[in-house]
């Protein structure tokens, strides 16, 4: 179904190594508008590293990134943001000692005509966005280190959606959350998908993401095992991909697929 359109993101043959360890090895993944692609694999499979290349946190050793079919120059987080790529990192990456508004606008502060920080305007917008995401959130004046895990998570999510992202990367977004908050994130993902945003949803746990995803891409030992549409595979088959690298018939094998010959 997707073949006729240009992918929103295409990462082709991307590699990176850290002192001899091939954290990501010749990996290719893609993402279309309004699509949720789950990136699955064990801890240490290279998922976070791969998407950190897309978000500009790491520089790739090889391969290319296309955005809307055009080669994209992504060398740092600022470049990625220019392409509308927003990221919720596994570590959340919030500045603990400043408040929610300062975190939402970190690096993109609103300023008055005199060049000073427009804190009230930022707080107002923050109250609006947080009100939509997490209506119970009231602690606007406190440094985020005083917040609970779920509240910090909503700050990180709010920051990612505040600037009209076209491509959203969520690295284990529900790892720190309870069941109710997890459901809330699920609702949010459906809503963003409707708005035409492409989402990479990363998890080491298939149960978290299978119902939300249109496609899955599985990684193992830094390599891509394969891709599949969720309607074409069962959870058990995907588990087989994750654990053994065994690619089911309806999936497209990648370089990391188990050699059956």
């Amino acid at each position, binding site marked *: 179904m997707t073949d006729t359109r240009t992918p929103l993101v295409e990462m082709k043959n991307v590699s990176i190594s850290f002192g001899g360890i091939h954290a990501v090895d010749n990996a290719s993944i893609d993402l279309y508008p309004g699509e949720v692609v789950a990136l699955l694999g064990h801890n240490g499979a290279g998922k976070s590293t791969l998407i950190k290349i897309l978000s500009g*946190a790491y520089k790739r050793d090889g391969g290319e990134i296309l955005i809307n079919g055009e080669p994209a120059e992504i060398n740092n987080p600022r470049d990625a943001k220019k392409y509308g790529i927003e990221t919720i*990192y596994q570590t959340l990456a919030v*500045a603990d*000692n400043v408040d929610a508004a*300062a975190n939402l606008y*970190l690096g993109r502060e609103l300023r008055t005509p005199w060049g000073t920080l427009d804190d009230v305007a930022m707080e107002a917008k923050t109250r609006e966005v947080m009100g939509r995401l997490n209506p119970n959130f009231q602690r606007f004046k406190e440094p985020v280190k005083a917040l609970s895990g779920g509240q910090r998570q909503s700050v990180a999510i709010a920051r990612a959606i505040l600037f009209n992202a076209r491509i959203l990367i969520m690295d284990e977004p529900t790892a720190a959350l309870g069941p109710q908050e997890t459901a809330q994130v699920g609702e949010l993902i459906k809503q963003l998908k409707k708005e035409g945003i492409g989402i990479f949803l990363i998890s080491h746990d298939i149960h978290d993401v299978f119902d939300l995803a249109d496609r899955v891409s599985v990684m193992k030992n830094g390599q891509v095992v394969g891709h599949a549409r969720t309607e074409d595979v069962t959870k058990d088959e995907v588990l087989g991909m994750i654990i053994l690298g065994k690619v089911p018939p309806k999936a497209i094998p990648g370089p990391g697929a188990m050699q059956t010959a």
Partner: protein
Amino acid sequence: MADITTTAQANRARSASENPVKRFFRATEIDTRLLGMIGAMLIIWIGFNILSGGLFLTPRNLWNLSVQTASVAVMATGMVLVIVTRNIDLSVGSILGFVGMSMGVLQAELLPQLLGFNHPAIWVVTLLAGILLGAAIGALHGSIIAFLNVPSFIVTLGGLLVWRGATWFVTSGRTVAPMDSTFRLMGGGTEGSIGATASWVVGILACIAIVATIINSRKQRQRFGFPQRPMWAEYFLTAVGCALVLGAIAVVNSYPWPVAIARKYADANGIAWPDGGLFIPHGIAIPVLIAIVVGIVMTFISTRLRFGRYVFAIGGNQEAAELAGIKTRWVTVKIFALMGILCAIAAAISTARLNAATNAQGELDELYTIAAAVIGGTSLGGGMGTIAGAMLGALVMQSLQSGMVLVGIDTPFQRIVVGMVLVVAVWLDTVYRARAK
């Protein structure tokens, strides 16, 4: 809408159940840690006043205290930003020495040859050159720290030795004196004070500024319908702020010129010498005024500008700041360059006060500056600190120092006390942070 009213009710319910002391601090948003420091300072002041038989709390001593505090207070404002990003600058005393010596040679030996003695431009040219030199040294340190990844502790420890050595080379160890007569005003003294009338004007302007700030922040919060401080808290803060300002002005205005200087002034201006002597108040000393302006500018930079926001964000979580797209290395370079500029301003104050540039100028100042920042609530764990706190910290350190001189404690013992106070201050910071968690 319903949401807002229920939370407002919840807030009111919460404040009703709190005890009055807690409610007072929450409403006024007064930092209890800052208050603790003011308490400690008052104890030191009253203690020394008793021990010295009433010599400490006199206009004369307090005026001197303010002048002696100025140079370290200026540097402490920059040290806050350095420490907030989990760096340290051990070289500030040596930078002060080197820049001070360079400014000394420039104004006493080089510029007079070019422009003529006591040329009115000498002080500005000297000060600007010093500021540029300080900024360049700071930027050099910052670049090594940020781009070559050498820890700031090592870079500035090296700087401590390098710039002290370089100070010697400027004149081969010779003391340079006297300073340019206008430049000297930056050091205070009878001439370098602005007098009673101007001091009152400054005081009244400060009060107007306090009122304007409070009204403005109220208006801003009203514009977006945010919760406000209760009215009584606003009045309270305004009253305390203005009372402190006007009280300080009254003190510096009740310290008269020494008789000899007043008599010379009377003779020169054809004023008949009255029987009770001539009472000419000092008013605010120029170095103190400089320090206050530096404090205001630095507070503005650290709280109202993007740069300041980045400094604190980096201190909280450097990785998060980088991922947010902040150029953390450049911020580090800028912080150290700013620190260098402040060292140059401190050097101007200190050479002007001594009316000479010496080899030993600023020795141990790094410790007083760091101590001032830490005592003033800057956390060595990074991410936390205020400019006002650091300046108060400088005042506490200088109060201890001056008090000990006043009651006749020997220099070696003074050092022992200062050293112990520094350790205790850091220990208190650890305790405070552990409790805050």
